[in-house]
């Protein structure tokens, strides 16, 4: 146990929390914005898988991580617009659209990977891990002054630029939601679409913008997964982060700052799981920890919400 603690109180451990939290934070921001617009996008997992695959493939074929990164964003947005078309135009239940995207994101990406890389024969498990070298990954940035500060430098400096961007986006999304007319419209559509429509807001357009935003965020998350977190795409590499984000959104009360804190909590749980297995505990015992924490924290959040809901009522009664 002491061994575990001394293992954990290192800059590397806190560094890994930030690194692990970044993709969850992107997906959480996606979940927050669509939730504000009044619906749930459970296809984040699949969107991230597609972005991760195409990001890594294009980075390999164009020999440029930046183009791969842009393609990941474009793929995320296009796929999410497709989801929007089915959900809003053809009135498919948005949850079912999400399930379909996740289905395609799981097996369909493997199909595309096999077909595009021509790794069909003999290899049951195709991936792009062999194609992506560290020069094709999104570069890490060391911050000039901070990197020399002991401990803090080790925690904060040297991350992929997408990690910094994730936390910046958390702030920007909050500004977008509460300080711009677009944000106002998104929230209005989510709270009462009829009222929003009556003052001339195009509900459909706002919903499309919201889902495209979630696609963009999934694009960032997916690019991070295959071009920074891991070198290359492999099957089911997103491993439930798209779902964990839904929980982080709920736990954070649907707000950006709360969502960031809950993303960090999940990052912490996952980093701890990795530490557990490094000191010899079975990783199968450590791996479910983030998922279990999700359920527990959702339950706790539910209790808190119920108490809050009860309070004003009793106050009125007395």
């Amino acid at each position, binding site marked *: 146990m002491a061994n575990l603690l001394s293992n954990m109180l290192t800059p590397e451990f806190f560094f890994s929390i930030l690194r692990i939290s970044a993709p969850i934070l992107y997906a959480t921001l996606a979940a927050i914005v669509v939730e504000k617009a009044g619906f749930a996008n459970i296809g984040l997992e699949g969107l991230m898988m597609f972005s991760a695959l195409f990001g890594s493939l294009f980075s390999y074929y164009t020999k440029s991580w930046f183009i791969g990164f842009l393609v990941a964003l474009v793929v995320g947005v296009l796929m999410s617009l497709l989801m929007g078309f089915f959900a809003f135009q053809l009135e498919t239940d948005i949850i*079912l659209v999400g399930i*379909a995207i996740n*289905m395609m994101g799981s097996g*369909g990406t493997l199909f595309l990977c096999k077909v595009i890389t021509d790794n069909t024969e003999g290899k049951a498990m195709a991936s792009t891990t062999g194609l992506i070298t560290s020069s094709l990954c999104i570069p890490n940035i060391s911050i000039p002054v901070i990197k020399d500060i002991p401990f803090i430098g080790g925690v904060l400096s040297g991350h992929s630029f997408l990690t910094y961007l994730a936390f910046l986006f958390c702030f920007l999304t909050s500004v977008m939601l509460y300080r711009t007319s677009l944000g106002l419209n998104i929230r209005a559509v989510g709270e009462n679409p009829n009222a929003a429509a009556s003052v001339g807001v195009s509900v459909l357009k706002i919903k499309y913008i919201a889902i495209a935003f979630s696609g963009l965020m999934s694009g960032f998350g997916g690019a991070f997964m295959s071009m920074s977190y891991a070198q290359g795409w492999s099957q089911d590499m997103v491993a439930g982060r798209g779902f964990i984000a839904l929980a982080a959104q709920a736990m954070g009360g649907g707000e950006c700052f709360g969502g960031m804190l809950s993303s960090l909590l999940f990052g912490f749980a996952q980093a701890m799981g990795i530490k557990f297995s490094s000191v010899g505990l079975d990783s199968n015992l450590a791996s479910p920890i983030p998922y279990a924490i999700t*359920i527990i924290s959702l339950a706790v959040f539910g209790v808190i919400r119920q108490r809050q809901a009860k309070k004003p009522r009793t106050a009125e009664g007395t």
Partner: protein
Amino acid sequence: MTKKRQLIFSLVRGLLAIFIALVVAMFLIFISSEGDNAAEKLAATGEALKQLLVGPLFRLNAAGISFEGKRLADILAAMIPTTFTGLAVCIMFAANQFNLGAEGGAMLGAFSAAVIAIYYPLPKGVHPIVAVLFGGLVTAIVMLIPALLKVKLDVSEMVCSLMLNYIIMYIIKYLMNNYYADKSKGQIQTYPFLNSSKIAMLSSDSVISAAKLTWGFVIAIIAVVICWLFMYRSRFGYQIRMIGINQDFAKYSGMKVGFIIVLSQLIGGFLSGAGGAIEMLGRYPTFSWSALPGYGWTGITIAILAGNNPLFVPFAAFFMAYLQKGCDMMATYANVPTQLIDIVQGVIFLFFAAERFLAKYRQSLVVKTAQEEIAQKAAQNKEGGQANG
């Protein structure tokens, strides 16, 4: 709309959805096929499509087409677990509960039944029944977690059940690694099931036993009938469907909404667990799954295809098994990766669930019916100009 028109509409809509999916599949096969020019690729695509559409039942070779009983038996055997998960999802979704736990449920049921099958010797005949019931019960109890959290604390059953799938998988892997694995084997697997626990083959015919088509198939069909009776001929089934249509209405008409929601997910859990258990005891000598089996996701597609009606589940399950077999055939004979099924499945799924898909056609049918009614009434001269459309 008349019943006949409704049926025609459903058929046209379903066939068109499948057709669109096939066009998408054709495009994907085309880009994945081998050949130096477009003509060669097109020929290869044609061959692959033939395998996809006809291959599941017929052998294609130079001599022509010949029926393969083994392949039909394979398809029927593959239907068993997905029929169960399809039923499970039907009942849970009918109550408007997007519980996605059938995936983990099937694995948990299979594992629980395997434990009974290995460690608790019971008389032949009783043993598999006890093991399957146990597998179902354990899963039902675990399914209480999302159900109760939803009813009591309004926690999203969808997120909760998804998380449960992962937890179930890792805990089973942990138990396998540390307690149940047969260490003398290179691969992680349990000790073999006791002979008394195995589910018997449907007949001793060599084709049937090669395909491992067990009595589980008959049980699955019986389960379909029971589920249909439950959903459409019982009080609880009616309440489940009513809650799914309008929860507030159900609440204000005095139904115990919380209880019914929990009940629907308990039944769903039991069915998915039992399905996994039957699959495990019928087709495997030991438990060796190291990942989620995928039956739960297929079950969701099946429930959507069946419109949440248990009676249509076996047909949807047959269709999905046929498609899977077709994709396997394509992978074997035409070198098209078998994961194509996930894309085809997703496309069919999207169009089936789309409310507005062919809405104009439906509208025209409704108008036509109404106009005919008006004409009929005018002819009968019973009522004045007012006719309801």
